[in-house]
């Protein structure tokens, strides 16, 4: 492990890779600072810039954008009470009152340090827990993999929206879309309608760009292109005060640990992590002065450490099991697959250096976030004034060139537009999109292992409950689906 860490660090500390990371972090901060520009959308539309890079460098650019955007989402949350990304929603509670009191700089510096602490803790968690999980997963056979895919789908459906049935429909739709193309086991063409471009299936990246680029764009136009409030508050100084650092230290650490654990649950992204860590902080810290909600720096630290910790946490199931922890890590899986790298337990055996390069790179990315966050706070705050009316047309062009770059085929642009309309319609009716993305990724794993398992057992379902691990995953999946139903039918029981 030490050798792989050293090799990974050596790969990261090359000038070209460092430049990519800096570029990624700055792009992430730029987009995250603009309300409505989510980390998922930014990673999706800029994915095409990594196609010609090697897998490690491509991941450095994307992880830089990811970390930068999640961090920078706090800036508009603090300054104009509008989160740049959904994961910064909880930062508003204390960030905005502090900014209103004329202490926007203090709030942003607190957010930067807490984001760094949360991010670094999550990467440490990724470093130490991934090999253990991967080791266990290496013993998985077909029934266990099918059960794991089923569990992944049910858990993401249950946590990523308000309605479990809607989440499940979204996930299953993703799975259905993924069945288009030549059946890998029999060679039969399924739902291809004789279109040659569909023989290899629907291009996952095109669907992602449609769901998170085009659909978000349509929503922005439907909601009215509000160019937002002007931000003119001056931010002085670079470093946070020692007393603030002392005050936020313990809560940042605890929130980082909790955020990492929450982030590692498929579907539970930074928004859920931040709300939970913020809520826990209000319970841990009694008699806070000022009160939580009135501009307490520890409230900002809890939310920001929690949401940034979810980034490394989300990479744990992504890299060890091939199951994305959130929408961004689903795109990262797609990015690796474009480079013929399949995330999952075998990655630790087949590509250990790549893996540790990714992990060590993410650690260095958080150092850059701390550096640029503190040094550039006064400039990032001005990014809020960028007009969306200028940005969205440019984003549409990036979406189109992004899919053309996939395989120089305009057909993928039509797939993207179709996915964009579907995504927008789903959003309009409160269907979460994250389960659909997971469904697209999980379908091949689920199908191959389900069919292989049934072939091995001669069609009997016994094979799923004779394996303790598969049985445990299936029981958990059933529990995840049944729990809301029980809660609905017997509200007093669950109270």
């Amino acid at each position: 492990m030490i050798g792989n860490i050293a090799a990974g660090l050596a790969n990261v500390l090359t000038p070209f890779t460092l430049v990519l990371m800096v570029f990624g972090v700055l792009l992430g901060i730029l987009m995250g600072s603009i309300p409505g520009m989510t980390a998922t959308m930014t990673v999706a539309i800029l994915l095409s810039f990594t196609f010609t890079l090697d897998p490690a460098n491509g991941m450095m650019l994307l992880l830089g954008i990811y970390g930068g955007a999640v961090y920078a989402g706090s800036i508009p949350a603090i300054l104009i009470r509008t989160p740049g990304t959904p994961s910064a929603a909880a930062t508003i509670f204390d960030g905005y009152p502090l900014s209103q009191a004329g202490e926007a700089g203090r709030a942003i510096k607190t957010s930067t340090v807490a984001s760094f602490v949360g991010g670094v803790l999550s990467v440490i968690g990724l470093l130490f827990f991934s090999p253990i999980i991967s080791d266990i997963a290496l013993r998985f056979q077909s029934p266990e993999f099918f059960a794991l895919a089923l569990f992944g789908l049910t858990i993401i459906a249950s946590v990523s929206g308000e309605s479990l049935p809607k989440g499940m429909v979204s996930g299953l739709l993703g799975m259905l879309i993924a069945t288009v193309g030549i059946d890998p086991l029999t060679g039969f063409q399924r739902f291809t309608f004789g279109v040659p471009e569909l023989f290899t299936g629907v291009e996952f990246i095109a669907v992602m760009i449609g769901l998170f680029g085009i659909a978000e764009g349509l929503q922005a136009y439907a909601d009215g292109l509000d160019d937002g409030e002007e931000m003119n508050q001056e931010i002085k100084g670079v470093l946070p005060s020692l007393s603030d650092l002392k005050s936020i230290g313990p809560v940042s650490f605890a929130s980082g640990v909790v955020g990492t654990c929450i982030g590692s649950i498929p579907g539970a992204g930074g928004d859920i992590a931040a709300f939970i860590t913020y809520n826990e902080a209000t319970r841990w810290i009694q008699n806070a002065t000022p009160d939580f909600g009135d501009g307490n720096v520890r409230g900002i630290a809890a939310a920001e450490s929690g949401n940034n910790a979810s980034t490394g946490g989300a990479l744990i199931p992504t890299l060890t099991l091939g199951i994305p922890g959130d929408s961004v890590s689903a795109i990262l899986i797609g990015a690796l697959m474009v480079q013929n790298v399949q995330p999952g337990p075998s990655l630790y055996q087949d590509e250990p250096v790549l893996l540790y390069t990714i992990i060590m790179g993410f650690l260095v990315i958080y150092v850059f976030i701390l550096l640029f966050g503190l040094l550039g706070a006064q400039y990032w705050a001005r990014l809020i004034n960028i007009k969306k009316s200028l940005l969205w047309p440019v984003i549409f062009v990036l979406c189109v060139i992004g899919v053309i770059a996939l395989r120089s085929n305009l057909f993928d642009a039509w797939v993207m537009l179709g996915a964009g309309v579907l995504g927008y319609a789903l959003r309009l009716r409160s269907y979460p999109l994250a389960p659909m993305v997971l469904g697209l990724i999980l379908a091949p794993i689920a199908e191959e292992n389900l069919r292989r398992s049934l072939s091995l057992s001669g069609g009997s379902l016994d094979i799923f409950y004779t394996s303790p691990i598969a049985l445990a995953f299936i029981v958990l999946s059933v529990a995840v689906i049944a729990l809301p139903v029980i809660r609905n039918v017997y509200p007093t029981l669950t109270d």
Partner: protein
Amino acid sequence: MNISKKLATNPLAVVFILVSVVVIYAASQFPDSGEVGPGFFPIVTAVGIILFAATDLFIADNSEFEISDPDLKAAGLVFVFVVAYVGLMPITGFLVGTMLFLPLTLYYSGVRSTPTIVAVSIVFPIILFYVFSQLFLINLPEGIIPFSRLLPRLPLVMMP
């Protein structure tokens, strides 16, 4: 909540059920190679969609009512611009197509500064053209008249 009200607020559930029925029919026509043939997984998935979409129609859930009143016309029109941009690209090519798409969409989005519109519409497509076509060596659509070939080639080497 009664079903007719649910149908009105969540018509997508009905669409998904209908699509799933069609999928089940189509997948049942796939060649039969026992219970785990190529049609098995699409059928299982479609049955799942029907079950959950029907459940969604029957349970009380207020998530659809949190939707604000969207301006579908604005979203529809910008979508038409993007569709025309992609649809005409085999004729216009990426460079010219983007130079036509951007001013139209920028103006529609509310940008009124002519220098800004002209600058973004010319500089941005050229930068993208150079990055993707010459740096990343990706074949971008050239259109029936390949204007992009008039641009000077950059003395670049492949990226590491």
